[in-house]
């Protein structure tokens, strides 16, 4: 039988970097094939080549045994290759329905046959058990839902080869389960699935075979039953990785961040945060678990001053922060790692070093009045780049040429290295490879030991549970439960994340 996809000697170069360096890879029909690798290993690039977005500089592609030149995304669709991108390719202002049908509209003449489209989508929704409102605008739905839209887009087009680039990064454990169930079903239907993830447990669970990439090259292809997580990690990074967190007990300090009865409204007037109270002491990590879209983002943004609060109060290091400007709040010693790095974290066309000082550019060490001190700024950047092993060709390159994970590292380097007293970290390791994620975790724990107060918001339940001293579950704008992580299992927390059970706040 012909293989679904055969890549032979694929090479793709970007300025200063060889993203794919002679990659040869075979993917069987009907298998789930995982691709793992460090940040910047070239996974997305390889998949984009398969999807017709990039053209390889060298190499050949065979789809079901036939040599193909995938010159455009349109050609990829003709070949029944569908891709769910790491950075969603959705039209934010369109509805879910419009996004799904775009380019493959059911039509009556020149007019869109909305009824028919609706029917087909309805069938898909019930077949795969997706809860999605086809008329909701994409800009208003949660990331997890957006993910489903992306998958639906592919299914709607009847793709035989599905490429999923880090689909689980934004999903809650339950959602991951659902996704995997669906992937298995698709596999049974005979579809071929290429799956990219940094979460090795997941990979080991779902994949039939795993290919490891490092620095643009194939390190090897393995079968899950014959490797351990540690071995896999070592293949990726090239050296042993210790995946155990050492959490030393830290004496609780003063309350550094306190939120009281906070209400934050959306533009529509609907409360997104509905009376949240919490207190975080120095030396404490407070984790917020929850499915995305339950007010975590708004909570974080309200604390940092990006959103107006309707009522309630935020106090930082003993000073009322409500009503202060973002800059003033940051000057109180608050670091902020936003969840959407492209929108809020980085100025993409600007250089790496410029992004590294963004927001801190008026600090003394970066000024040589009346101008910026380019020298110290660059030195600072070089240091962080080394520390966080950011993979780049030059700090003068514009940051949009960096891989997703490396971009995140720049943000972390910027926000964590300036001795903040309060750290608000939204999805800090989203999209980071194991090595980098581990580094970030250590960094957060170090800050904890230094007596900082940390608010950690993450969809990665395992991360929340292993790092936090206390965990709150956010559902529907409220903190519906609070635990000490050692008291609960992920499953317990998952129940609350989905709105089940109500447990009165303890401790705080």
């Amino acid at each position: 039988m012909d293989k679904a996809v055969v890549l032979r000697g694929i090479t793709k170069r970007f300025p200063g970097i060889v993203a794919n360096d002679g990659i040869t890879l075979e993917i069987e029909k009907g298998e789930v094939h995982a691709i793992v690798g460090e940040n910047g290993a070239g996974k997305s690039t390889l998949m984009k080549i398969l999807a017709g977005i990039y053209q390889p500089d060298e190499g050949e592609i065979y789809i079901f045994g036939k040599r193909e030149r995938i010159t455009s995304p349109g050609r990829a669709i003709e070949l029944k290759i569908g891709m769910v991108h790491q950075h969603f390719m959705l039209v934010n202002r369109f509805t879910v329905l419009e996004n799904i049908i775009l380019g493959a509209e059911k039509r009556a003449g020149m007019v869109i046959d909305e009824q028919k489209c609706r029917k087909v989508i309805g069938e898909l929704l019930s077949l795969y058990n997706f809860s999605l409102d086809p008329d909701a605008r994409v800009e208003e739905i949660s990331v997890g839902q957006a993910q489903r839209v992306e998958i639906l887009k592919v299914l709607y087009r009847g793709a035989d080869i599905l490429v999923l680039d880090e689909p689980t990064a934004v999903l809650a454990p339950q959602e991951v389960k659902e996704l995997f169930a669906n992937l298995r079903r698709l596999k049974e239907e005979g579809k071929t699935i290429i799956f990219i993830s940094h979460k090795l447990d997941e990979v080991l669970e779902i994949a039939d075979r795993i290919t490891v990439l490092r620095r643009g090259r194939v390190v090897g292809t393995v079968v899950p039953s014959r490797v351990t997580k540690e071995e896999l990690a070592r293949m990726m990074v090239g050296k042993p990785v210790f995946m155990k967190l050492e959490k030393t007990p830290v004496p609780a300090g003063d309350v550094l961040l306190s939120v009281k009865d906070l209400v934050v409204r959306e533009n529509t007037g609907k409360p997104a945060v509905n009376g949240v109270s919490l207190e975080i002491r120095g030396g404490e990590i407070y984790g917020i678990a929850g499915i995305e879209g339950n007010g975590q983002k708004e909570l974080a943004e309200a604390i940092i001053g990006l959103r107006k609060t309707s009522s309630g109060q935020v106090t930082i290091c003993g000073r009322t922060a409500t009503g202060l400007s973002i800059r003033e709040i940051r000057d109180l010693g608050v670091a902020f790692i936003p969840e959407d790095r492209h929108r809020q974290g980085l100025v993409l066309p600007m250089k790496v070093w410029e992004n590294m000082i963004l927001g801190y550019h008026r600090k003394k060490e970066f000024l040589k009045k009346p101008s910026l001190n380019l020298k110290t700024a660059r030195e600072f950047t070089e240091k962080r780049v080394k520390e966080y092993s950011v993979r780049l060709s030059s700090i003068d390159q514009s940051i949009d040429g960096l891989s997703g994970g490396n971009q995140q590292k720049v943000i972390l380097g910027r926000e964590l290295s300036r001795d903040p007293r309060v750290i608000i970290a939204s999805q800090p390791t989203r999209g980071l490879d194991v090595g980098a994620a581990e580094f970030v975790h250590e960094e957060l724990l170090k800050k904890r030991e230094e007596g900082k107060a940390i608010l950690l918001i993450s969809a990665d339940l395992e991360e929340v549970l292993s790092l936090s001293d206390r965990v709150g579950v956010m559902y529907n704008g409220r903190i519906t439960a609070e635990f000490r992580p050692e008291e609960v299992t992920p499953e317990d927390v998952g129940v609350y994340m989905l709105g089940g059970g109500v447990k009165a706040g303890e401790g705080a």
Partner: protein
Amino acid sequence: MFLSELLASSLRMAVPILLTALGAVFTERAGVVNIGLEGMMIVGSFWGALGSYYYGPYFGLLLAMAAGMFLALIHAVNTVTFRVDQIVSGVAINILAYGSCRFLSQAIFKMATTSPHVAGLPKIDIPVLAGIEFLKPLVSGVSPIIILALLLVPLTRFVINRTVFGLRLRSVGENPLAADTLGINVFRMKYAGVLLSGMLAGLSGAYLALEHTGMYVEGMTQGQGFIALAAMIFGNWEPAGALWAALLFGFSEALSFRVVEGGAIPYQFIKMIPYVLTLAVLAGVVRKSTPPAADGIPYERGMK
């Protein structure tokens, strides 16, 4: 009587702005800023007059639209194919329109700035309504283009919102990369949007020359291409919004004609009325304007 005349005058003043603004909706929804609309109106007025002079008004209108589309094609080649800055290309197109009309007018009519008199379309009376005395100025002797322009508003809306073409056009202006990954020919959609805008701007120019004045006069577009652009933005990139904005502008202009001059207010201030009123309305009505997300950004595959 005064009121209905005021309204009739408003409508006459609004129509060229409306037509061009509808064109602007098409091009901007496809993500191409077209500041060359003024130039496309200019060639519309000239070629409309030229066509009508030799072969009658219908031919004139066709020629005007073709001329507008020709300039639009240049704009599309510049901005979509070569990805030149959209505003520079528009500015150059305005200059080209001005120069070429002057050149051709001199060559063909032996007058640089005016054409001979030309015929317009037969005016029509709207049945039934034209019988009502009060409405007479509004509904009798109306240029068919005015009616066409008004009909184009719901039509444009329908095309943009309900057709396959419209959906794809919008997607290209919002997120061309996403559209591209779905196999939509981004370039073709952008070309279509720009060409449509040229066609409508050309028609609008022809309205001025054939229907309103009965001849081409250099500079008769009076910057209305820019006003139309403003109207389109004012109307939040929507056809219906463009209609209201154009009407507001036409109305305030008609109103300014009727403010008695020589009174206490210096006439220069009366001339400001349309602009001041527009600003005042804008400042008073707080509405968030949301341009298409990728408006003005040239698209190139393989770029982030």
